[in-house]
């Protein structure tokens, strides 16, 4: 892969897009933490250590080396795409505010229950002094939460505005994602390409030359959800209600994601794979997808079996008039995919054979029925599918 020639492209430490109130608050919090660290008091150290421990328990993925790296661990605090980074700034700040509130209020709660617990030496007939309340104190602890809420609201409004945009510049790649039970149909209208389940997109190495991918989310049946945490937050894929979402990945790799809205039996195996590759590789992939499959006379029997068993009712294969279905994934360039059944298994001979014999074994409840093929038919169709590169 050519990936090694490029820098890893992690530009998220650049404080671009982190201006205004967020930056100001960051400085404030850093300042407070600095003061805390300056204190030699052991208790403060303990609190800081606990905080660091919490952060350290969250696994982080290692920086990209090449496009083959599978980013299976999708930590939302380790974003690798512009909108996810915007969300992350807000998320980290919110987390920090909440942690501070937790430490202060939780600490006070524990302190008062320990400090004011009844001791065995206490005289039980004596009641503590009866305090009924104080308007001044009530006011004092009502105002800080209101101020915190105002800050969080402002940050929310700002980030919502930044992430909820629709890109239409000429560098933008349009991508139509259609959720089906239980797989993803992908259309690249600019290129006239239809694919399934594995999204190929080019990387945006530098913020100065971004190539955002503007996705249009539609559903063919029930509600689904599109979520690849390192690329963007999730968005529902709703029938009769078009949603827009963009990503702008800054690092190479294969990003894994899931359907997030329960959509039926195989909701768990409606997986997403986003392959972020160097622009040259992306163009190569597009060219491969546009090409007509080469008719290989040696698998003509398999092709016949494919058609005779009505596979074409649901599946489309370009150049084969009898295979023009729209219910299942397009198989024109089936062998260019890494996985089967929307990510349920690796695309190899063994799994493909199992799938052809009975899809309900690998993915019980999926829409493709058991076609009751015998060994010979399976072998023939397998050989034919393997030519669909």
């Amino acid at each position, binding site marked *: 892969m050519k990936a090694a020639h490029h820098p890893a492209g992690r530009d998220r430490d650049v404080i671009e897009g982190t201006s205004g109130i967020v930056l100001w608050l960051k400085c404030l919090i850093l300042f407070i933490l600095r003061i805390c660290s300056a204190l030699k008091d052991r208790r403060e150290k303990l609190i800081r250590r606990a905080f660091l421990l919490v952060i350290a328990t969250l*696994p982080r993925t290692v920086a990209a080396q090449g496009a083959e790296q599978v980013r*299976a*661990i*999708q*930590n939302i605090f380790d974003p690798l795409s512009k909108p996810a980074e915007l*969300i992350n700034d807000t*998320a980290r700040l*919110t987390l920090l*505010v*909440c942690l501070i*509130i*937790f430490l202060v*209020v939780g600490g006070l*709660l524990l302190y*008062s229950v320990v400090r004011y*617990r009844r001791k065995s030496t206490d005289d039980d007939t004596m009641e*503590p002094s*009866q*305090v*009924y*309340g104080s308007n001044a*104190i009530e006011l004092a*602890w*009502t105002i800080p*939460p*209101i101020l915190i*809420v105002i800050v*969080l609201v402002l*940050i*929310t409004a700002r980030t*919502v505005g930044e*992430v*909820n945009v629709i890109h239409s510049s000429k560098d933008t790649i349009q991508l139509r994602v259609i959720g089906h039970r239980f797989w993803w149909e992908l259309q690249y209208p600019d290129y006239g390409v239809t694919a399934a389940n594995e999204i190929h997109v080019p990387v945006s190495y530098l913020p100065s030359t971004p190539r955002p991918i503007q996705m249009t989310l539609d*559903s063919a*049946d*029930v*509600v689904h*959800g599109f*979520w690849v*945490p390192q690329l*963007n*937050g*999730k*968005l*529902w894929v*709703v*029938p*009769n*209600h078009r*949603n*827009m979402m963009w990503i702008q990945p800054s690092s190479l790799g294969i990003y*894994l994601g*899931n359907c*997030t809205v*329960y959509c*039926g*039996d195989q*909701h*768990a*195996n409606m997986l997403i794979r986003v392959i972020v590759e160097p622009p040259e590789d992306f163009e190569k992939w597009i060219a491969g997808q546009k090409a007509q499959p080469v008719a290989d006379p040696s698998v003509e029997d398999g092709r016949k079996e494919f058609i005779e068993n009505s596979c074409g009712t649901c599946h489309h294969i370009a150049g084969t008039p009898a295979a023009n279905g729209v219910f299942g994934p397009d198989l024109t360039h089936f062998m260019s995919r890494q996985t089967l059944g929307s990510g349920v298994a690796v695309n190899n001979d063994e799994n493909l054979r199992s799938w052809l014999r009975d899809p309900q074994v690998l993915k019980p409840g999926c829409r493709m029925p058991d076609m009751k093929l015998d060994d010979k038919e399976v072998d023939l169709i397998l050989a034919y599918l393997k030519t669909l590169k």
Partner: protein
Amino acid sequence: MANGTTTVDVGEEQLPARPGQERGTLTGWIQDLIYTVDHKKLGILYIGMALVFLVLAGIMALLIRAQLAFPDGHVVSPQTFNSLFTVHGTVMIFWVAMPLAFGMANYLVPLMIGARDMAFPRLNAFSFWLTFFGGCLLFFSYVGAPGLYGSGGAPAVAWMALAPLTSRAFSVGPSTDYWSLSLLVAGIGSVTGAINIMVTIFCYRTKGMTLSRLPLFVWMIVTTMFLVIVFLPPLSAAQIMLTLERYLGAKYFDTQAGGSAILWQHFFWIFGHPEVYILALPAFGVLSEVIPVFSRKPIFGYPMMVAASVLIGFISAGVWAHHMFTVGMTSFGVTFFGVATLAISVPTGIKIFNWLATIYGGKVRLELPMVFAFTALFQFLIAGLTGVMLGVAPFDWQLNDSYFVIAHFHYVIVGLILFAVFAFFYYWYPKVFGRMLDKKLGFWHFWLFTIGFHLTFDPQHIAGILGMPRRIYTYHPGRGWELWNFISSIGAIFQALGIIFFVLNLIWSARKGKVAGDDPWDAWTLEWMTTSPPPDYNFEKLPEVRSRRPLWDLKHPDDPDWKFE
């Protein structure tokens, strides 16, 4: 109605045995529970029913955790798993948490306000039995839904019944109808029950029990019942619309015929979010009674506590769409509901501060009710803060529909509400059965359940942050979720053990527990004035109430509360 044919005045419970009814035997006791219109017995029935359903839905949770303990699990089939989480969620909300709230209110409200019974005793029985039979209807789906069609089973549409998954194209057979009709039946029971409790509180208070002297538990119940009356009907309406759509060709939510999936979401959550407060406010009420008594101080800032509860009740009407930040709303919609959601954290924060101030400077007796109440309060602090994170809309885009949300709302429903219910049991069990719950068994219950709770739900936050979506029946290894799910499943075993100790304690202490006496906790509200258990008519005589703590005034005639109010 339970006994619609009899002409006896059922407001008086001094009834002779009915023909064929035996007194003092098990059969007689069961018959008595079936015929009863007494608010105390109905309260016990509500809570007993909730415990039975808690165990059933808890077993479902154990199966769910068993399936997810390891990647590529094969304990149950995907179809079974999907119906397990649907029924688990539905039952826990509608037949465990809500009946617990109604049961607590039923038993305590008349006693706390010094009334003889509820305003409409027979309506009360009617409400209970509707709820009960609604629950039976849902469970009957396991038997009935495969029925004539030979397809389907228990409903598998998630507890929020994600339309258009509920349309006939995607839900073949009657299983979804069991879901919607059972909720409709129980919903009517809840609304009638709520009206009853509201009328009781407003019309049947004893002399001197003004609204500003109501125990805080009763104030929380007022707010709760207001929410039930206003926000359950939208859910019932939605169930009727769904049934019309499935059987009479209406097209509300069926997207294939031009309906809207988002419309269902609005209908569901305009009920669904106030529902959270319907469940949480009674728990707040329990904390507001237990914490002062065991800190030996009156509640700090009573008027602010009342105002905060009522404010929560009102604001909760305008926050429902924060469950829908990810459905694709406009930026304005997202921001509006984000503001409302964050605003509700202010009165909630005030409550926490007031409880804190009640403990502060007190003389805290760490008896079991207080231990549970304090743990509930501490866990609610965490649940509230993860709620703030979910209220910040961009953060929610990442966290929603993930295991983080699962962890968050289990922190609310188990960590706050169930722990408060346990506090309720340890505090009021002596009043109900006349005997104390055993301390040793209670100790085991507390530690097993608390450890189990944290083992189960703390790791789920991290699984969610690592991108684990909810409602998946399986996952591949290598996604970083294995460890967290494994710990979670181990924790479920601890929780189950805790519940076993709890149930053993309930049964054992009813016969062998230490005799409690009228007022074992040296408490201040009216229910501790009468005998334990209270007679059918509740009170022989009542003093005129002159302050928020009538029993304090009686016990401390030299330093009564009314001097300071």
